[in-house]
């Protein structure tokens, strides 16, 4: 657990200081990612560097697992905290193996153990050890260097990591890939991470909690969903942008937003009886399933009301379905792509598990919003 208590940093002369970080209080539970977010110069990096004491606080304290870091030897403290910087900072004079082993070597690990660890870590991100261990940083692509930069911070398995815009130096496509990769890794390693970013999308994607800074002050500290749904003031509202509701789409799982009271019909049923059942159950559509329960076609109440005959003659084929493990962004994208106002939601086996409609999406986005 990381706790910042009245953390303050002044630069410049004491009689006329520049306040870079102003009385910041923050609690981060173990195993979570906190993204420090805000415009350039708002004090994110300074806050982060006070945690590993690269910058000495003017006042206030930092606790890690209840221990005041001011009482620990700075060198030892830093060796116990993983550190990733924006410029990656791989040492060009050292091979990839030597770079990854920097902290284990400082800690005096057995050589065989640390080299083994370097090998494992490279495998973890899909870089072949026999190809990369003996290479120098300049012989790697930007994305590969970035991955090694993160691995180097993980090498000694520190419980806490500080990451200052760690994916800032690579192109957007590679950045997405590395973000996903890192989140997947985080699921198993469960580090407590302070992550600096100036990119809202990145923050929403990576964070368990977001801390928004302005002019050295912590303006709001909340979960991404909470932040997007309830910005604390107009500065944050502006910062989040006019499309902040859309950004929440990614945060809401299909599982939580879908309606499960769908009805199923047979191809041979009459349209009238299907409509009758839809009306009585209040659902907007009826699905025709195959023997496995996979949705084949659907008949909307609207169509059913204007037609007569057998369901088979009027049901529209299902052109797409969203997995329940997906998010609303995925669902909306499919709805637009296939022009389907009603989208079936399916489980891992492709079987119908629920229905997504525009209404249910709007309802979920509006949910929790202060009027």
């Amino acid at each position, binding site marked *: 657990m990381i706790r910042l208590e009245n953390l303050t940093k002044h630069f410049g002369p004491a009689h006329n200081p520049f306040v870079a970080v102003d009385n910041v209080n923050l609690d981060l539970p173990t195993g979570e990612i906190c993204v420090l977010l805000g415009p350039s110069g708002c004090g994110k990096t300074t806050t982060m*560097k006070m945690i590993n004491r*690269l910058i000495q606080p003017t006042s206030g304290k930092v606790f890690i697992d209840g221990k005041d870091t001011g009482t620990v030897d700075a*060198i030892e403290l*830093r060796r116990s905290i993983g550190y990733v910087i924006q410029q990656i*900072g791989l*040492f060009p004079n050292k091979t990839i193996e030597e770079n990854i082993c*920097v902290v284990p070597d*400082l800690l005096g690990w057995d050589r065989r153990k640390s080299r083994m660890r370097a090998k494992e870590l490279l495998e973890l991100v899909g870089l072949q050890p026999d190809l990369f261990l003996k290479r120098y940083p300049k012989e790697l692509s930007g994305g590969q260097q970035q991955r090694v930069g993160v691995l180097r911070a993980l090498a000694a398995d520190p419980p806490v990591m500080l990451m200052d815009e760690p994916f800032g130096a690579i192109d957007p496509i590679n950045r997405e890939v590395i973000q996903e990769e890192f989140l997947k890794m985080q699921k198993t390693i469960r580090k407590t991470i302070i992550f600096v970013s100036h990119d809202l999308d990145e923050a929403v994607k990576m964070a368990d909690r977001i801390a928004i800074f302005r002019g050295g002050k912590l303006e709001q500290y909340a979960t991404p969903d909470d932040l997007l749904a309830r910005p604390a003031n107009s500065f944050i509202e502006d910062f989040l942008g006019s499309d902040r509701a859309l950004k929440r789409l990614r945060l809401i799982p299909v599982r939580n937003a879908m309606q499960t009271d769908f009805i199923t019909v047979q191809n041979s049923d009459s349209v009238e009886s299907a409509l009758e059942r839809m009306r009585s159950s209040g659902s907007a559509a009826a699905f025709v399933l195959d023997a496995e329960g996979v949705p084949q076609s659907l008949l909307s109440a609207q169509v059913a009301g204007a037609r007569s005959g057998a369901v088979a003659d009027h049901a529209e084929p299902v052109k797409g379905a969203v997995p329940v493990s997906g998010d609303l962004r995925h669902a909306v994208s499919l709805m637009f792509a296939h022009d389907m106002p009603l989208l079936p939601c399916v489980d891992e086996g492709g079987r119908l598990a629920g229905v997504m409609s525009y209404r249910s999406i709007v309802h979920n986005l509006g949910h929790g919003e202060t009027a």
Partner: protein
Amino acid sequence: MSAPAILTTPPQERRRPALAPVLVLVVLAGAVAWLWSSGMAEEILTYSDDISYLAVQHLELVAWAGGLAILTAVPVGIVLSRPAFRAISEAAMQVFNIGSTVPTLAILALSMTLLGIGTVPAVFGLWAATLLPIVRNTYAGLRAVPPHLVEAATGMGMTPRQVLWRVELPNALFVIFGGIRTALAICVGSAPLVFLIGAGGLGELIFTGIALDELPMMMAGAIPTALIAVLVDFVFGQIQYHLVPRGINPLR
């Protein structure tokens, strides 16, 4: 200061077909052929005893002066690059730069007035003339190490000493070696002058040859001097090539 720029030169640009060595060989072969055919070589070789004795003396002078210069100049460059000395380091480098414009002969003359004649003032004078390029390149090389590397190293828990030895010096090594090679070239080239303050060396043949208008005698001093210069530079070039890690060595 052009030396740090070498660091950024892409390696492929430095691997153009090696014309220079071929040219040197051709000229050398021509010179040797001329020396033999004109009978000059025979005359020069009559000095072979003097040559071998004086060449060893010459090398000893260079080794002492160069060795001491490396041992003093690198630490001075390191100290000047430390943050604590930032305030005075630029001024100090200016002084060094002005100092390096003083002719070696003048330095030797000063050395003689201070220490008299013989080996000690000669080594001192050569040392003083050799010092400057090494200090300058050590300082510039260390200053050119990207600050974020130092920050990363510190942030991962290296002590200042570990940062210096494991990150800063290795990354400045190529530039430092550039300074050492320049300095040694100056040292070897100036070494004949120390004959003038009574320290011997190959200068004895050169200056006596000039005074007596004996071309072969002068050549007997000049040719070994040139060969020593080439040899020393070659040796240090090899050391540079192999000692500077591949990751930061533009030569490989």
